[in-house]
């Protein structure tokens, strides 16, 4: 009868609310807000309250998909990254944009804008919070 409260940070936005994943015998059974978390102080929004559900969702993507003959088909990461690289190389800088994410760390966001500006030569970089 192993029941644990595993501390985590809500994966949805940049606020970083604290939550506990309720784990019972290795299964995720719920989410509880973390009362003592300095940012969220025991509150969550509707996304945080459901932060456990996507983990086992049957709709969750577990592999990259590549559209072939008009249909999305499972592909390996190698195939997917190579295809993206090939298309980015072929495109002119003004035809490329990157959307980074509030879910990423500062460092990841920094690297994204560096890639877009210094490598691809484009100024088209934005983030998901403006979508």
């Amino acid at each position: 009868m192993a029941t644990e409260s595993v501390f985590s940070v809500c994966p949805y936005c940049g606020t970083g609310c604290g939550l506990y994943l309720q784990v019972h015998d290795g299964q995720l059974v719920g989410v509880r807000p973390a009362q003592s978390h300095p940012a969220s102080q025991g509150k969550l929004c509707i996304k945080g309250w459901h932060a456990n559900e996507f983990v086992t969702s049957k709709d969750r993507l577990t592999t990259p998909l590549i559209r072939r003959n008009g249909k999305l088909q499972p592909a390996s990461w190698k195939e997917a990254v190579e295809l993206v690289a090939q298309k980015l190389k072929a495109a002119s800088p003004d035809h490329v944009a990157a959307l980074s994410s509030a879910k990423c760390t500062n460092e990841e966001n920094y690297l994204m804008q560096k890639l877009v500006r210094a490598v691809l030569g484009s100024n088209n970089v934005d983030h998901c919070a403006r979508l």
Partner: protein
Amino acid sequence: MIEELRAHCKELLAGKRLDSIYGLGDQGGAHVPRFFSTVDELDDLVLAGKQRLIFTCRPSDQNIIALVQGQRSGLRLGIVARGCDERALFELAKLSQLSLDGVEVVGVACDRTQAEECRCSQPYPQDPRFGEKLEETFDDPAVARFRKMGAEERLAFWEHHLGKCIKCYGCRNACPLCFCKECQMERELFVRRGALPPDFPLFHFVHMMHLADRCVDCGACEDACPMDIPLRLLKKVMRGAVRDLFNYEPGIDPTRGSPFAGIARVETTHGD
């Protein structure tokens, strides 16, 4: 008091009278509900904070005690319960959401500081083994202020506060007595999808009315609200009305069923 409580719980486990103790545990300075299955683990047992013991797991809509009972039949479980925890246990048992068979409540009365902080109407379980029953009321001063308001003022008050709602469903999710598989607060008939704030006052009143004979005044709804809506006040006023009209307070008497149980329910059969 905590040392005595730990010693008592250790005795219960060591003497094989109980298989497990459910209470709040210290985890890196934070207090989380957990099961203690060995004597050594009980060194981490704490009595603190507003963290509620009894909660509903989602998406299964099953409370944590029933979840554990379902996995291990005949489980002898000790629950370190404050007044609010015990009231929730009693109500859930009445509503067949858990079984009190094999459950031993280790009752702990809250001290004055905690009772004041929680604005608790009854800061003690039925038979506290630890702490003293504080008989005076620590009720919310907001209730007295609200009662002095006229109808117009009350309307404006609720229009202001309920208008802040971002429909996070935190009040519903945090409530130990909310376990409906089909929540009326998600029904298109009452709550329009994508509309913010939700229609005044239907969204919050559906919750309030559904909890009229269940609300145990634990305050979890208000604590969970990111918009600081005085939900506790709403529930306290409702509890007061049920007490005055039916002489009934949920969670106080484990043997007395809801007075609403005898009232025929007329459910709408319209589609959403």
